[in-house]
């Protein structure tokens, strides 16, 4: 069974690029363009990996992760934050998020692949 990932970002370019990279690693990728859509997707099916932008319409990435922390079945979900350096990084640090990885935008695809591999090792 293939692994699944949810990519939540308001930029279609970021979503498509991350999805294309994850697809190479055999992920079945779903996309969400705002925080509420991401939460709906998470309720429908829990993925193996969540990659989320810290600035999302509706429900921010930080709020989304806080919502995950409140749910037993989602607490152990690996989360990578996409943040614009430096403001986003500061914010992610300030809210004390349980982010497992931080991916700075703009990013290099090789760095992205390395971060994902460290976060969710290949089966």
């Amino acid at each position, binding site marked *: 069974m293939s692994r699944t990932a949810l990519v939540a970002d308001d*930029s*279609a*370019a*970021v979503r*498509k*690029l991350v*999805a*294309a*990279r994850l*697809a*190479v690693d055999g992920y079945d990728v779903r996309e969400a363009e705002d925080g509420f859509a991401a939460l709906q997707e998470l309720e429908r099916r829990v993925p193996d990996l969540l990659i989320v932008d810290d600035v999302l319409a509706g429900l921010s990435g930080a709020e989304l992760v806080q919502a995950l922390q409140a749910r037993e079945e989602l607490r152990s979900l690996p989360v990578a934050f996409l943040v614009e350096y430096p403001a986003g990084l500061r914010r992610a640090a300030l809210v004390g998020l349980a982010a497992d990885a931080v991916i700075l*935008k*703009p*990013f*290099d*695809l*090789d*760095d992205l692949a390395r971060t994902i591999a460290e976060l969710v090792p290949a089966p």
Partner: protein
Amino acid sequence: MNTLALILGGLLAVELLVLVGRRTWVHWKLGRRQVLADEALTVLAAALVTGVAPEPPRGRVRRRAFRLAALELFPVVRGSSRSGLCRLVEEAGLVDDALRTLRRSPRAFARRTAASELGEMRSARSAQALADRLDDRDPIVRVVCVDALAALRDLGRIDRMLSVLDREAARAPSEAAGALVRLAREAPQHVEELQRSGESLYARRLAALALAEVGEQCAMPSLLGELATENALLSSVALRAIARVGGAEAIATLEHVVVDMGRDAALREQAQHALERVR
């Protein structure tokens, strides 16, 4: 009377039909453009990941969709991924499209857009065309070409570039400000030269702000002069820039403004907030 009413009614009906038809056509066109742009984004993203160049897009509309998709992707990637995307757009003929527009279009707006896109794509092949357009008849095109050359890190014509900024800063202020910040990152010594010896006061002011934006201390004397003016807007902009420079002199200046009762209350409040950030 009846005939006249019939004619007017008929004309009104035709007018309404035309409006409805036009609206439907625009909706269809925008929807189709969006679909093509989404497709292009998916194709380019996959090509960038796999390293396999896609089929070059055929037709004006598809090429435009590809170009827009590429321009959305450029700000997202860096390093070797950015170089890879540049190679893909070169192979797809998108750089040539923009070069053709820059060289041949009679419309200034089209040339500005093409120059800006070439700056975003950063293909080394566009340097000569951008340099040629430093003499374009439109001042904004000239300034955008300076910005694009700075994006390419091609500073071989830096004297001409600075001269364009000196002459046109007031006519293309936002484009000049952007170009100066980029130049200040790449080669602050040249922007400092413009700040020191530019003919236009406006260009010298923008040069100081650009240097401050990248934290260059050499902007301070000019900014302190601006801060001392009675003009509330100029002093407020200068204060923000001083905070961007940071360091001991900036902190001392901000502290002085906070307690200077002769200054505007809003400026003192701004200085207080800036101090909290700088410290």
